[in-house]
């Protein structure tokens, strides 16, 4: 079952749609965004130079830095009265990366999320338990709108409060679970405490999981713990949010929705486009975005794509699960954060030195972030309360600016590990 017949259209038809939409997008950003016009003029490129899909490699890249530099609405191509929704992700200086949607953009988002739900086997008969956080993040509301679009019953549970979530899932008879894989596993662990036959209390048949990198092993674990099919969803707010692609029942590869997004894999060092099947950095150009059209957005995610047909009948490209990052971005309970952002927060906390270490590990199935900060004589006090304030200040700055919960631990000066004299800043114990 597909939501939209274009998902199994002939490739030449898909590409025809892509080319026409790409041309429109290029025209749009050139005429409406000074940032892109300057970039085009610099390299002597005109919108009419784009005559084939391969010409996309002539276009300039866009990065997260560009979005930040135009905070908040600088790259929007429509007046604010046409923007119906704003979402954002965390930022360094307390300034987040902001994305906007017109009514038409929302329709596209609903559409691609409807395809995701349909791929997971959901229909209007289903009850969807949505455990993604609601708010500025795209996760909660993205899933919410998609479930409404297919006419399913949506339970907007949001994140946290495991016991209550389990109660809702049991009492309301949820059939589809949407949540991060780690939180889903954590919920299963808690549910198991009621006895080994806990599954009899639940009616779940499938789950749509995303926002975190997941190994095949982890997918299997989640799938078995809940006795359900595992569907992986991919997305990022800069492009639209969740709904860029999803895996079907046939394989772990994710079908990506090419009629709305153009996919390339590049060498992250040289920027050269890589051939089909090779791994590299994923670059996406949204083809239908109105409020915030971006050209060749560098996701930083490492993956590969293939045109090989799928047994399910869909013809759109398939992408493997994200296998890593081109940069040092960490994903903590679904929230993306760069060590440089954490460093910025620490640097802006009065009295704290920049000798710190970030330690990410798993506590059960949940991510746990510890930040060890070396004390100095400057912040040393004879009062426990005063020192606890420093710890609390860093923690609340991290929560307010980066949306991450961290435990800040004060340690002795020069006690943090140095490797050949150079500080070891990040220890990610979650990696196998």
């Amino acid at each position, binding site marked *: 079952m597909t939501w939209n017949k274009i998902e199994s259209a002939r490739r030449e038809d898909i590409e025809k749609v892509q080319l026409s939409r790409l041309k429109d997008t290029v025209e749009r950003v050139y005429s409406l965004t000074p940032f892109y016009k300057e970039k085009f003029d610099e390299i002597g490129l005109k919108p009419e130079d784009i005559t084939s899909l391969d010409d996309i490699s002539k276009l300039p890249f866009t990065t997260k830095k560009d979005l930040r530099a135009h905070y908040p609405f600088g790259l929007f191509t429509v007046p604010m009265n046409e923007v119906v929704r704003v979402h954002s992700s965390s930022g360094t200086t307390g300034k987040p990366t902001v994305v906007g949607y017109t009514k038409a953009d929302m329709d596209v988002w609903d559409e691609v999320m409807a395809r995701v739900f349909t791929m997971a086997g959901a229909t209007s008969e289903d009850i969807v338990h949505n455990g993604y956080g609601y708010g500025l993040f795209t996760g909660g509301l993205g899933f919410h709108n998609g479930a409404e679009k297919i006419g399913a019953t949506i339970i907007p549970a949001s994140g946290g409060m495991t016991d209550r979530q389990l109660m809702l899932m049991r009492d309301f008879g949820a059939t589809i679970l949407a949540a991060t894989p780690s939180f889903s596993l954590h919920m299963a662990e808690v549910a198991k405490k009621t006895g080994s036959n806990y599954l009899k209390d639940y009616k779940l048949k499938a789950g749509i999981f995303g926002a975190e990198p997941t190994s095949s092993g982890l997918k299997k674990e989640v799938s078995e713990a809940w006795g359900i099919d595992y569907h992986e969803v991919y997305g990022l707010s800069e492009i639209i949010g969740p709904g860029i692609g999803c895996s079907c029942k046939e394989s772990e590869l994710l079908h990506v929705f090419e009629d709305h997004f153009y996919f390339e894999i590049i060498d992250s060092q040289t920027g050269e486009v890589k051939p089909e099947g090779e791994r590299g950095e994923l670059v996406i150009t949204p083809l239908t975005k109105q409020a915030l059209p971006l050209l060749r957005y560098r996701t930083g995610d490492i993956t590969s794509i293939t045109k090989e047909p799928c047994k399910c009948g869909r013809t759109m490209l398939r992408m493997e699960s994200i296998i890593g990052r081109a940069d040092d971005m960490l994903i903590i309970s679904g929230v993306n954060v760069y060590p440089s952002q954490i460093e910025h927060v620490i640097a802006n906390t009065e009295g704290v030195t920049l000798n710190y270490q970030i330690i990410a590990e798993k506590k059960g199935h949940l991510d746990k972030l510890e930040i060890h900060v070396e*004390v*100095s*004589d400057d912040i*040393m*006090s*004879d*009062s*426990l309360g005063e*020192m*606890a304030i420093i710890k609390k200040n860093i923690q609340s700055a991290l929560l307010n600016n980066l949306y991450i919960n961290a435990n800040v*631990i*004060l*340690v*002795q*000066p*020069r*006690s943090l590990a140095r490797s050949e004299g150079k500080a070891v800043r990040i220890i990610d114990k979650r990696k196998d």
Partner: protein
Amino acid sequence: MYRIKQLSIFVENKTGQITDVTTILSQNNLSIKSINLIDSNDFGILRVIVDDEQKAKKVLDDAGISLKISDVFAVAIDDHIGSFNEVVTLLSSNNINIKYTYTISNNHNGAFIFKVNPNNFNQVIDILQKNNINILKEI
């Protein structure tokens, strides 16, 4: 005068942390007049009075241990019921807030140690002297 130097030494909540500090102090021939640990869940502060705080600071700094030196004052223990209460009542009736206090005892005498807001320090000494409280210059 009357300013007793107290070291506040940072200790992590790990076995052996106090030993690290006291070993350094004893190896450097420093005499501990008073020691007292306050702890939170993940770290503690060791409040120590030694006979040579500058030397202690140097050797602890060299060992990479953070500390701060703060001024406290000591009142000789007069061995009768209510002696501590007299001092505290005197301070509170003059609106002086006591940050913390503890007792120490040496060979033949003892003292109450007090920490107040540094801005109030001289005022406190004045008040106590006017009331014939025996403030110690050293311990």
